[in-house]
């Protein structure tokens, strides 16, 4: 246009940074960024993320009733498996004393005399996979039987002691205490010369382990189902949020926002939902524990136990919060991936 030739000169003076052909290579963004420098990019990132995080938090606060309901649902979904897990670990702790009492009684050959029996007992004691709890000689066994049974006269009639010497052992510190390991240990004791029979009292250990196994698996399964529930809750909440802000998304896209920029507040929204849900779940669990601690202590005292109901340790609280935040983030990621791309200005 030749009508206003003076404009070009004015333009050059006022905007020295912009020259024709600045974007000639078709890859202008990189060049421009390079000019601004890597430090600027990092600090922009550092500024952008806290801003998006705070904005999402502010948005949750502005819609606090709806947010609180979502958070409450997440809290219940996380607290339920958490509570069961606490019960389970308390049960394991309460029964922890029992399986350390798993013992093997090695009945020695009744035909051995006292010295020979002692030698066999020494051989057992020398093994490093067991620890000898008690040695009962044949005479001691007879005396004990006499005291307990009251069959004094009947025993007098016998010409010799019918009872064998017994060595009671338990697995030494390093040994596994599972039923299978105990059984294996009993069999190896029975191989020793002079041991007539080794008896492992396994049944109750097996039952206990089976029961705890079942409960643990049940809790895990429930946990997975409820985690999926949390994903769906967060995903749906974020989906509604996206639909509600459709116009805003269109406008920001028109202004030149990248997908990442638009995605960010929704992802932080999901993160906050999950994190706040996990925090509330923690509060619920702490509250339940406080309510149950008294009765549990009284019950334990009635059984003469020092047992105390334990809550979540710091590492478990960390795990709970991490799980909540992770589920929230994944849930919102799923929703964002599905719905955000479909919204285009037009």
């Amino acid at each position, binding site marked *: 246009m030749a009508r206003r030739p003076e*404009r070009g000169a004015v333009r050059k003076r006022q905007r020295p940074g912009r020259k024709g052909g600045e974007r000639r290579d078709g890859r202008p963004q990189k060049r421009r960024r390079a000019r601004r420098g890597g430090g600027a990019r990092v600090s922009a990132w550092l500024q952008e993320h806290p801003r998006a995080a705070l904005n999402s938090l502010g948005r949750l606060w502005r819609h606090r009733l709806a947010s609180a309901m979502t958070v409450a649902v997440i809290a219940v979904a996380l607290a339920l498996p958490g509570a069961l897990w606490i019960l389970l670990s308390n049960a394991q702790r309460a029964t922890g004393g029992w399986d350390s009492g798993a013992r093997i009684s090695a009945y020695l050959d009744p035909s051995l005399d006292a010295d020979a029996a002692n030698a066999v007992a020494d051989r057992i004691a020398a093994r490093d996979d067991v620890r000898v709890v008690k040695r009962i000689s044949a005479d001691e066994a007879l005396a004990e039987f006499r005291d307990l049974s009251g069959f004094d006269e009947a025993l007098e009639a016998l010409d010799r002691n019918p009872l064998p010497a017994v060595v009671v052992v338990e697995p030494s510190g390093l040994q596994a205490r599972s039923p299978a390991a105990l059984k294996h240990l009993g069999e190896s004791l029975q191989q020793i010369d002079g041991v007539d029979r080794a008896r492992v009292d396994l049944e109750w250990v097996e039952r206990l382990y089976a029961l705890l196994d079942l409960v643990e698996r049940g809790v895990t399964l429930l946990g997975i189902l409820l985690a999926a529930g949390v994903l769906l809750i967060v995903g749906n909440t974020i989906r509604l949020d996206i639909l509600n802000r459709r116009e805003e998304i269109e406008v920001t896209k028109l202004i030149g926002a990248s997908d990442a920029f638009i995605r960010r507040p929704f992802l932080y929204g999901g993160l906050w939902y999950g994190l706040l849900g996990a925090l509330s779940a923690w509060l619920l669990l702490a509250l339940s524990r406080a309510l149950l601690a008294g009765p549990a202590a009284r019950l334990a005292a009635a059984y003469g136990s020092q047992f105390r109901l334990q809550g979540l340790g710091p590492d478990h609280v960390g795990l709970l919060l991490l799980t909540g935040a992770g589920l929230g983030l994944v849930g919102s990621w799923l929703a964002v991936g599905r719905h955000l791309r479909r919204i285009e200005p037009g």
Partner: protein
Amino acid sequence: MIRFDHVNKRYPGRRDALTDVSLHLPKGEMAFLTGHSGAGKSTLLKLIARIERVTRGTLLIDRVNLSTLPRRRVPWLRRQMGIVFQNHHLLYDRTVFDNVALPLVIAGYRSGELRRRTRAALDKVGLLDKERQMPITLSGGEQQRVGIARAVVHRPPLLLADEPTGNLDPALSREIMDLFVSFNRVGVTILVATHDIALTEAFGLPVIALAGGGLVRDDFAGVDLGTPA
């Protein structure tokens, strides 16, 4: 700056919205895009902003071919332009300041520079005293000025306006148009779509006219097929 080369645009299931349009808007110029509603003004602007894609032909914005521009680069393209909408497209849950600052937030400006530039843009449109207000409390003309401040705050080389004075009275329209002229004076290339013939005549700027999807007047190329009935 903007170069259409035999561009066709067809929406699925409809006749061509644009037929064989070739035009060139040079860098630093300001022009009016006129025509009746349905003539293809909005479509033409949508093609430039890459809201719609060209069906046939080539469209270059500052030497960038929009047909081969990958989807992930579209945000970058849109940051090279400012767009003023007839219905403002403001975000009504944010203050005037936050609305205007949005393009700078997107571009990742630091807060000091962001505040300075945003206030400069608001000052330019005469709304510096209303930066804390919500857009809904402003009049139509003021809202449009907020939209303009937002479109120029990041100092884009290209400014598009779709019926920016569509809902305003003549005095306000003139004011808005003066604002555009002042941006053009500092080198911004501007294309204003309007059906307000009186306004275009009052300003005496080059006109590109569309009718029925075809180009009927292009003052840059010296084409004037006359105004169709």
